[in-house]
C-alpha cells in the first residue's frame, strides 16, 4: 500500500479553517459557560429552596448524560421544542455550553464553599456588606482554587468540540473526516487529524499541569 502524505499539505487551507472553527467553538463556549456557571453556582447556594433545587437539577442532569447524545438531542429536539431552526454551529454551541456550564457550576460552588464560613462572618463583623464580603474576601480566594479546575475543563472542552462534527459543524474533526471520504486517503487524513489535535492539545495539557502546580491548593 502506498501513502500520499502530500494530501495533507494540499488541503492545508481547509484544515486551517477547521482549526479556527474548533478554537472559535471552544472560546465561545467558555465565554457562555463561565457566566453560566457562576449564575448556577450562586443559585445553588441561594437560601431559597426552589432556586437551589432548580440549579441542582440542571447541573446533575447535564453532568450525567453523554455529550454526544446532548448534541444529537439539541439538533433534533431543540427546533421542535422552541420552534426555531438553528444553524449547526449554534446548535453545537448550545449543547457544549449546557454541558460546560454544568461542570463550571460545580467548580465555582466548590470554590466558594471552600472558603471558611468564619471569614465571611469576620468580614461582616467588621461592617462589610454581604456584597463586599463576596467581592473582597470570598471571590479573590475562591479564584485561586477555581482557576486550575477551569483550566482542566478548558482542555476537556477543546477535545469535546470534536463531538459536534456529528451534526456537521465544520470544525477540525468534521473537515478531516470529509476530506478522508472524498479522497479515500484514510490513514493519512486520520493521522493528520490526530497529529493536529495533539499539536494543539499537548501544550495546553502541559500548561494546565503548570497552573495546577502554580495555583493548586494542597493540604
Amino acid at each position, binding site marked *: *500500500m502506498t501513502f500520499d502524505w502530500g494530501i495533507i499539505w494540499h488541503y492545508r487551507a481547509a484544515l486551517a479553517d477547521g482549526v479556527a472553527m474548533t478554537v472559535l467553538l471552544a472560546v465561545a463556549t467558555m465565554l457562555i459557560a463561565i457566566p453560566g456557571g457562576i449564575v448556577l453556582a450562586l443559585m445553588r447556594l441561594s437560601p431559597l429552596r426552589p432556586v437551589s433545587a432548580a440549579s441542582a437539577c440542571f447541573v*446533575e*442532569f447535564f*453532568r*450525567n*448524560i*453523554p*455529550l*454526544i*447524545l*446532548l448534541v*444529537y*438531542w439539541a439538533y*433534533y*429536539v431543540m427546533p*421542535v*421544542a422552541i*420552534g426555531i431552526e438553528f444553524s449547526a454551529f449554534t446548535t453545537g454551541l448550545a449543547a457544549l455550553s449546557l454541558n460546560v456550564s454544568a461542570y463550571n457550576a460545580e467548580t465555582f460552588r466548590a470554590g466558594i464553599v471552600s472558603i471558611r464560613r468564619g471569614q465571611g462572618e469576620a468580614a461582616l463583623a467588621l461592617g462589610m456588606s454581604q456584597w463586599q464580603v463576596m467581592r473582597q474576601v470570598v471571590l479573590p480566594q475562591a479564584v485561586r482554587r477555581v482557576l486550575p479546575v477551569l483550566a482542566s475543563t478548558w*482542555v476537556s472542552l477543546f*477535545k*469535546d468540540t*470534536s*463531538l459536534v*462534527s*456529528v451534526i456537521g459543524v465544520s470544525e477540525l*474533526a468534521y473537515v478531516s*473526516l470529509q476530506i*478522508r471520504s472524498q479522497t479515500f486517503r*484514510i*490513514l493519512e487524513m*486520520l*493521522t493528520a*487529524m*490526530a497529529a493536529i*489535535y*495533539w499539536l*494543539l*492539545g*499537548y501544550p*495546553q*495539557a*502541559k500548561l494546565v499541569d503548570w497552573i495546577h502546580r502554580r495555583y493548586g491548593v*494542597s493540604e
Partner: protein
Amino acid sequence: MLGDLDFSPLLESWRYLAAGLGVTLALSALTVVSSLLLGSAIGFARVYGPVWISRILTFYIDSMRAIPVLVVLVWMYFAFPLVAGISLPPFWAAWAALTMHVAAYVAEILRAGINSIRPGQTRAAQALGMSGAQVVSKVVFPQAVIRMLPALGSIVSVTIKDTAIAATIAVPEYMERSQTLAGQSFRPVEVFTTAMIVYFIILFPATRAVDMLYRRVAHLGRS
C-alpha cells in the same frame, strides 16, 4: 409541535434498544476493568520505573490527554487496520481505543494519589528497615488508594459516557441503536429524549455512589 408525540416505535423496538443497552454496559465493564489494569501498570511504572520509561509513559499519558477520544476511536477502527494489516470488529476496536484513552487517566490518578503521600513517610518507613516493596505495599499504597477512590469511581461514569462515542464507528450500543431507530421511525424527539433519560438513570446513581463513597472513606485517607 410537542403535542403529537408518539412513543410507540420505542415500545415496538424495546428489545432492539435493550440489546443496545446490554452492549453499552458490556463495553463499559470491559473497558473499566482493562483500563484499571493497564492504567495501574502505567502509573506504577511511571512513578517507580527508570527515568527513560517514566519519560515515555509521561509522553503517552499527556498525548492521550491532548487527543479527543473520538479521534482515537476513528483512528483505531479505520486507520489501524491499514498499518497493522488486521482489522478489528467495531466492538473490539472501540474497546481497544477506549482502554488506551481511559488507562491514561487511571495512570494519572494513580500518580497523583501516590505523590499525595508525604515523602517523609517513605523515609520513615525506610529508616525502620522496610524494603522498597514493603514501603509501597504497606505504607504508601493503602493510604493512596483511599485518596484515589473518588477519582477512580468517576472513571466508571466517564467510561459509560465515552462508550456513546463508539456509535461513530458503528458499535451497536445504545446510542447507535437510538440513532438507527430515530432514522427508521422518523421519531428523533421521542427516541433521543428517551435515550437521555436512560443514560441519566444509569449515570446518576453511579455519580451519587461515588459521592457517598467519598464521604464515607475520605477520613481514612488523612495523614
